[in-house]
């Protein structure tokens, strides 16, 4: 089915609906809220990376001035976690701390200072345990266990999938290219520090305002841990001052203030310090990777084998999904006829890793795109033309059964080739200057929800009345990506009104229908589809009433420019408000709903839940760099990026997302890293805005953004995601450009000056001009699941099950021969 055609709103640069509030300081972020008699909460956090809690003495703290309540792990014994398979977190650690910063106790007091002083007065006796600071040490140290669950020792998750016989694929190759890569962890660093305010209403119910991207999942966690009926818990997601994935887990501090509000009967607020935000983390997993590719002389892949080892930190978080994601999307850009993926995630004594913009895919994308550059170099091919020749076709299934719909990568490549002057630059700039290319793709929402259910992923309700006012309700959360603007735009487009005419009410579990949250780039596609459905139903009500009034068939009714009229005689009609009055008179009180559930994926094997998406966005990116050959310092003056967004619902916000993605990618490429001190108990090296390097105006490059619009049948108006994909190609494009500039490979992110200089020094000394990991520690990835690719007759199931299934069918038709 072709997507709905845009009217007068979608595709334009209409105003961001929350703009006026944001520029006047009126937007209320969670920390901006205050209530009468409000108490302040402070958490006492573990000073040890791994230790048993022997005893906690809170008596002195409880007696301090202003203190109203003190909590420890005993008060909140129920575990929680974002994934059903990793319910391994506690609001306060009951018996064990697993990283420096793990919360142990909480205080509510009249002022924040009093709460802090009291927290310092809590005595905790610890027995220290051996600390694990990396995948290597986790593999070496199966005991003590950081968690008493997982696939083996301190290995949280093992994955081994093979799609087709990769050995055969390698045997058919003209060349085999192998290399190891490392992607250091980094974090979201939203400018807003997390904050929450909870209150117990006089009827015994709970309400919490929080800086969360996922009010629905927080709602579930609160219900579970507090043992309250879900209907008595209200979560209001405040606008987030940046999220990027860092506010998409339910957090211990949120549960703690809720509990304190219930206990004290007073509103309780917490505002995390920047250091504490680093402890919440859930950012990029440090990932070691090895890539083996078989290629023919023309650059066609014959087989691809990826290994990834993820340093998960102290808790599960989204980690199982992250691990699958490090192996999922390698197949959607270039044809990969046979593919094998081995991945593992280890528990370590560091703040937990999770989903950061690109969730699990930037690391392998970096490895793959640098690998493609190597392959082109080895084969003497132009890396851009080589990629162009072997693109995964539109409307196709990949080896791992991902359903690709619209696919604009070819157009993206051509665009950046022309705009960047690629042909004149690549391999031709003077030493010290270079250009590099990389491509990428990202999901527009995951095909499956985080917990198993058969419910819609997104719901929208519309309320219209005689005032002509339209209110759109949806559980989605605006984290700056502009989802409120998309919601208003989709509704306004269908109803022929202005987006600013639509009041949006979002992210409130009492008022709005469930939307799973602002993660995995799902909101525009899923909420957008739900909004279009609800708006089309409302349109039908309005058009029907007007048709009756005008005495023309409903098909002839148009809604445009706040008018509802006869298409054949546009003068015949009425204002939108008059139309609403007619509709309310005809139908009674007006309200419609829309919902969205993604199509079912053809993949059936275990682990097939990660990767499928209703639509994939595509990107091609060229970075230009200047490398100082004496210091190794890298400057990026300019980036060209083409992004296949399917359809830009709003041009301004779409370009904003692309530029923001490039910005964050640039930071990851050059400087951002979560670094820890091994010598002092795996402490975070510098949990501050000053020492965690986020690019300033002085580092940010110029960006030329090209939107490629190849409408996808599954997207609202054909739209796909824009929030995450554009970050992905930046890191490999920069690394490839450094190679073009000075002839050395830094197979590690960030590409910092010391690494470049080291590689240059090696090159000068006659060694390989490379900086990167030598290899991966030996590991067991578990038993392999084999799935035949579609072109070899696979049906998406595990081969074992496929054989059994087929045999079963035969066995049931005894007389059929």
């Amino acid at each position, binding site marked *: 089915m072709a997507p709905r055609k845009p009217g007068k709103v979608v595709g334009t640069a209409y105003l961001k609906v929350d703009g006026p509030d944001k520029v006047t300081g009126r937007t209320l972020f969670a920390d901006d809220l205050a209530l009468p008699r409000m108490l302040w909460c402070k958490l006492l*956090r573990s000073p040890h990376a791994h230790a048993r809690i022997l005893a906690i003495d809170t008596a002195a703290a409880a007696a301090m001035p202003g203190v109203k309540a003190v909590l420890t792990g005993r008060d909140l014994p129920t575990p929680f976690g974002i994934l059903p398979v990793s319910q391994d977190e506690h609001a306060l650690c009951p018996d064990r701390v697993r990283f420096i910063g793990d919360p142990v106790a909480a205080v509510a007091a009249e002022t924040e200072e009093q709460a802090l002083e009291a927290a310092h007065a809590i005595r905790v006796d610890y027995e220290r345990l051996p600390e694990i600071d990396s995948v290597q040490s986790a593999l070496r140290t199966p005991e003590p266990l950081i968690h008493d669950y997982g696939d083996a020792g301190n290995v949280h998750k093992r994955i081994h999938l093979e799609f087709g016989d990769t050995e055969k694929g390698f045997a058919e190759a003209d060349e085999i290219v192998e290399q190891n890569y490392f992607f250091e962890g980094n974090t979201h660093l939203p400018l807003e520090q997390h904050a929450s305010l909870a209150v117990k209403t006089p009827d015994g119910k709970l309400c919490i305002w929080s800086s969360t991207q996922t009010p629905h999942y927080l709602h579930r966690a609160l219900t579970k841990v507090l043992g309250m009926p879900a209907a008595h818990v209200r979560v209001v997601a405040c606008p987030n001052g940046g999220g990027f994935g860092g506010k998409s887990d339910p957090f211990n501090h949120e549960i703690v203030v809720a509990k304190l509000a219930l206990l004290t009967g007073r509103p309780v607020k917490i505002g995390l310090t920047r250091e504490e935000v680093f402890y919440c983390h859930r950012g990029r997993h440090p990932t070691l990777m090895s890539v083996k590719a078989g290629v023919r002389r023309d650059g066609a892949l014959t087989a691809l084998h990826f290994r990834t080892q993820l340093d998960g930190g102290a808790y599960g978080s989204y980690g199982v999904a992250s691990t699958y994601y490090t192996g999922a999307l390698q197949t959607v850009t270039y044809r990969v006829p046979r593919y094998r993926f081995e991945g593992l995630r280890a528990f370590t004594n560091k703040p937990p890793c999770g989903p950061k913009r690109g969730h699990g895919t930037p690391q392998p994308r970096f490895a793959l795109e640098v690998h493609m550059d190597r392959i082109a170099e080895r084969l003497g091919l132009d890396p851009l033309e080589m990629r162009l020749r072997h693109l995964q076709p539109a409307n196709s299934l990949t080896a791992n059964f991902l359903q690709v719909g619209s696919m604009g990568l070819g157009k993206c490549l051509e665009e950046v080739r022309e705009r960047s002057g690629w042909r004149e630059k690549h391999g031709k700039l003077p030493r010290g200057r270079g250009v590099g290319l990389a491509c990428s793709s990202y999901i527009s929402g995951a095909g499956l929800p985080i917990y198993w259910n058969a419910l819609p992923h997104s719901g929208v309700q519309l309320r219209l009345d005689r005032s002509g006012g339209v209110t759109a309700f949806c559980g989605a959360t605006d984290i700056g990506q502009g989802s409120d603007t998309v919601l208003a735009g989709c509704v306004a487009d269908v109803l022929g009104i202005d987006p600013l005419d639509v009041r949006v009410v979002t992210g409130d579990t009492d008022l709005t229908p469930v939307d799973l949250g602002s993660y995995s780039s799902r909101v525009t596609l899923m909420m957008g589809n739900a909004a279009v459905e609800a708006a089309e139903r409302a349109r039908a009500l309005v058009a029907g009433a007007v048709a009756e009034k005008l005495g023309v068939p409903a098909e002839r009714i148009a809604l445009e420019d706040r008018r509802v009229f006869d298409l054949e005689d546009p003068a015949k009609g009425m204002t939108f408000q008059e139309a609403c009055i007619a509709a309310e008179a005809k139908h009674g009180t007006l309200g419609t709903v829309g919902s969205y559930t993604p199509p079912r994926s053809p993949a059936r094997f275990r682990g097939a839940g990660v990767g499928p998406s209703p639509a994939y966005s595509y990107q091609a990116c060229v970075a230009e760099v200047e490398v100082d050959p004496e210091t190794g310092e890298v400057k990026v003056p300019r980036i060209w990026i083409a992004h296949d967004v399917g359809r830009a619902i709003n041009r301004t916000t779409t370009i904003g997302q692309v530029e923001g993605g490039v910005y964050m990618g640039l930071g990851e490429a050059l400087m951002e890293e979560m670094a820890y001190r091994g010598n002092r*108990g795996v402490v975070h090296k510098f949990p501050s805005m000053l*020492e965690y390097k986020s690019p300033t105006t002085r580092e940010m490059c110029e960006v030329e953004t090209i939107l490629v619009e190849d409408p996808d049948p599954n997207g609202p108006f054909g739209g796909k995601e824009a929030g995450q994909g554009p970050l992905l190609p930046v890191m490999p494009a920069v690394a490839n450009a450094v190679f073009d500039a000075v002839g050395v490979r830094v197979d590690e992110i960030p590409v910092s000056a010391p690494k470049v200089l080291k590689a240059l020094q090696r090159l000068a000394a006659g060694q390989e001009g490379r900086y990167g990991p030598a290899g991966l520690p030996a590991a067991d990835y578990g038993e392999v699941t084999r799935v035949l690719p579609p072109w070899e007759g696979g049906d998406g199931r595990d081969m074992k099950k496929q054989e059994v299934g087929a045999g079963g069918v035969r066995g049931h038709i005894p007389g059929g021969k």
Partner: protein
Amino acid sequence: MLRLPPFEYLRPAGLEEAIRMRADAGPAGQFVAGGTDLWPNMKRRQETPAVVIDIAALPVLRGVAAGPGGGLRLGAGLRLSEVESQRDLLAAYGAVAHGASTISTPLLRNMGTLGGNLLLDTRCNYYDQTFEWRRSIDFCMKKDGDTCWVAPGSPRCWAVQSSDLAPVMVALGAEVTLRSTAGERSIPVAALYADDGMKFTTKRPEELLTAVTLPAPDGWRAVYRKVRRRGSFDFPVLGTAVWARLAGGGPEPLVEDVRIVLGAVGSAPLRARAAEDLLRGKPLTEEAMRAAGAAAWKPAKPMDNTDLTLGWRKDVVRPEVARALAELL
């Protein structure tokens, strides 16, 4: 939110009152000027003075006047943004103005002062951390602990002198004026610093830094280069200040005299004397610049307590010194 610990606030009306207040407060007292160094340190509980004496607004600290022998006397209370845009400075003391302009951000430079910059606490990323963080490493020698985690066997602290203007002022041969109830003294800026992360200044706690006197611009030249990760916010991981008297024009003038001072590679600004000796009395050729870079590389001993790796920070001394010399021309 990180908040300041409580203290008593005093605002003197004049110089005499300021130094008297400071003397009265004793070890519990502390001056504050722009507060851009002191307040963060206090929020992290690296310092908790009971009495804070606010000298920022003292008019006597805010002047720019002719110094002895044609030099320039800068009040210690001048804001960094005033230093970077001061006309007299821009004309004759480009390295000072430039050095000031590289400090942190335009916003911070509207607050931070010249005096505060020279007296900025030494830095170390085991130390510039919150109380909670420092507790998790069992504190360190500089504050509340016994061991230096940068060099655990060491009897001293290696925190880094990270002021951008310190190496510039040392290279220029500037002087500071210090005043206390005991009287006034002037010392070369070089003598203001001690090579110890904890006792990093020879200024007595009760002394007020009132002015910095720059030498007359009688033909010397000076430059300052700063290495850091980002072009804003960041402290130097290497600052290179070079002052020289060059004789004869042309592309390779003769070096009559030269001072090369490295910042952020030790607890005090570091004179690269061997490099200076190589240059003195010789033409400033490209080769000489490179040789000077190599000679300056040797004594630079950065420790692993700032941003970026110590190996790299040492390695870039070579090109940075050579480039600074080239900028003289």
